[in-house]
């Protein structure tokens, strides 16, 4: 057990993953430089540039080549520099990676991981603050997971590498160095498809994932300080979703707020709200609220604080639900 940042935990997980000779890392600037966020720092030196591969600037080519490798028995882990640069590769993901198992009825498979640094809050240039997980969660055949702590970042990444199916792995850029915590030594997996109850309570359920867990937990602590019994769920896995955990929580509390930084319309939160009304409607004592980014292009540095949900917005939404 040691204290690590989320970035260090990911580096440690990738290092362990490379113990498997079939694992290959691919991405832009991931070798010599260690990646734009240094997540692969030192790995090329340790495991060789044949296995930690610096690629040409061609996202579609990277994912397509990794897909070919996966078909031929390797387990590639691909890094996209930013989620906003993953769209050139979206055709490969949606047209081939997600469907080769179905297309070939299990004869060919794509056990591969696509790592996507995502999210706003670091004052970056345009395209560097995207949170478009819904466009991946919508595609059958993919699994979509979102890390939020150093501990689950390592465990989820090792689970993703072991998974026989393609996993879209979201890494909260804002938490890379801001999130620090205890990380168990050695190899362990955080199961894909299982949410995490971060806080137990009986008055209201706050449901979120990824970078927004920080604001969600802060909001929860403020509410707890005011005497509210708050339950907090970190979904961790969007596909497959731990529906039973969400439903059980809302049946107990009767109130819920769903939080993500992605835009509102068609966002993953809508899926959670739909699930709640399908399976817990008669337990509800107030309409479910969503606290999300707005349906605007993510603002640049000087205005992004208007966009990202804050703990204050979450508390306000929770209050309105509690008082309804």
């Amino acid at each position, binding site marked *: 057990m040691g204290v690590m940042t989320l970035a260090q935990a990911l580096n440690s997980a990738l290092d362990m993953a490379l113990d498997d000779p079939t694992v*290959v890392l691919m991405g832009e600037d991931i070798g010599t430089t260690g990646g734009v966020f240094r997540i692969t720092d030192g790995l090329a030196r340790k495991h060789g540039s*044949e296995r930690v591969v610096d*690629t*040409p600037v*061609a996202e*579609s*080519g990277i994912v*397509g*080549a*990794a*897909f*070919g*490798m*996966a*078909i*031929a*028995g*390797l387990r590639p882990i691909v890094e996209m520099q930013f989620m906003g640069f993953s769209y050139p590769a979206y*055709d*490969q993901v949606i*047209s*081939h990676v997600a469907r*080769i*198992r*179905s*297309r*070939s*009825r*299990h*004869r*060919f*498979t794509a056990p591969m991981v696509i790592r996507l640094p995502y999210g706003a809050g670091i004052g970056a240039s345009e395209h560097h603050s995207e949170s478009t997980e819904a466009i991946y969660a919508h595609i*059958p*055949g993919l*699994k979509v997971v979102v890390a939020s702590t150093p501990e689950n970042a390592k465990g989820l990444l090792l689970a993703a590498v072991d998974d*026989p*199916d393609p996993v879209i792995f979201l890494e909260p850029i804002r938490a890379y160095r801001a999130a620090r915590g205890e990380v168990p030594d050695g190899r362990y997996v955080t199961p894909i*498809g299982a949410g995490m109850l971060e806080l137990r309570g009986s008055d209201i359920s706050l449901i979120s994932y990824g970078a927004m867990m920080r604001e969600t937990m802060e909001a929860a602590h403020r509410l707890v300080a005011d005497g509210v019994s708050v339950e907090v769920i970190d979904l961790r896995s969007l*596909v*497959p*979703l731990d*529906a*039973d955990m969400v439903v059980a929580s809302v049946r107990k509390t009767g109130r819920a707020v769903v939080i993500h930084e992605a835009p509102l319309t068609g966002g993953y939160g809508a899926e959670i709200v739909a699930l709640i009304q399908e399976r817990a409607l008669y337990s509800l004592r107030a309409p479910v609220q969503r606290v999300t980014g707005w349906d605007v292009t993510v603002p640049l540095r000087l205005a992004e604080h208007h966009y990202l949900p804050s703990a204050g917005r979450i508390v306000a939404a929770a209050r309105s639900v509690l008082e309804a």
Partner: protein
Amino acid sequence: MRLEPRQVLAADGTVIDGREPDVSRMVARYAAMTEARLYDRKASALQRQGRLATYAPYEGQEASQVGAVAPLAEEDWLVASYRDAAAMRFHGYPWQNLLLTRMGDERGGHPPEGVNVTPPSITVGGHMIHAVGIAWAEKIKGTGAVALTMFGDGATSEGDFHEAMNFAGVYGTPTVFFCQNNGWAISMPRSRQTASATIAQKAEAYGLPGVLVDGNDVLAVEEVVAEAVDRARAGEGATLIEALTYRVRGHTTADDDRRYRAREDAAGWLGKDPLERVRLWLERQGAWDEDVQSGLESQASGLIEAALAEAEAVVSFSAGEIFDAMYEEPTGPLETQRRRAERSTRWA
């Protein structure tokens, strides 16, 4: 830059440079191309009878397809497109699988174990990079296997072509890029796809050799592919081959090519038929007559009919079975949907 297409067997059935091939090899190629043509016509007929969904005919391209896979070893990979049924068949992908896919059943996409042929790519061009990744994996594993990918002239306009060629060049993957330039991408002639004089010469920009070949000459196709496979296996990297051929029929059975090309467009090509030149050569060797022809045709028909019977005997999926191949282990949410789908058939 000027490239001349490689040719061994001229359209009149004479061998250039006196490189006379082995008779038994020519009989084998002629038999394969005959079977390929019969399948193509049969599949088109089955579509008209409503027994297949849309079909993409390759008539005129038999030499390219048979010749391209002839030099491949069993462990080598073929990553082909929707118009490459003959190439797939002669690298081990059974006719019944090809028919089953065209009938509309995903189980056609599951060739037998050991057959290193991926299901046909329906998207144009997205699959070329897969042959780079597959070949790269084989290189990492040190197996010596190579990957050949087939695509058309239209696919070379996709950005995917650039990325695939570029990766193959940078990493020296054992990949063979085999372009069947059949003159047409649905309604668009080759001249509207690229201002380049040839597609083969594009290889130069990626640091790869580009080869132009008469795609209706099975011997020349086989020769240039064998050279490319040897280079790849020797660790010398990828090759781009452009096979000049012609799509005699429409783009698919849903296409009417009279809307965009004049009958005269085909005139020059019909005299260059890939089967006819081999037949002429065999006849001169005393290895072909009407009896040989009918023997080959009845043997091929027997195979195709047996494959068809096998494909048509497959019982289509139940509602629950469509959930069977999304993940290795079905996920909880998907199992819930499966149960609902199974129940909903009661109200169909």
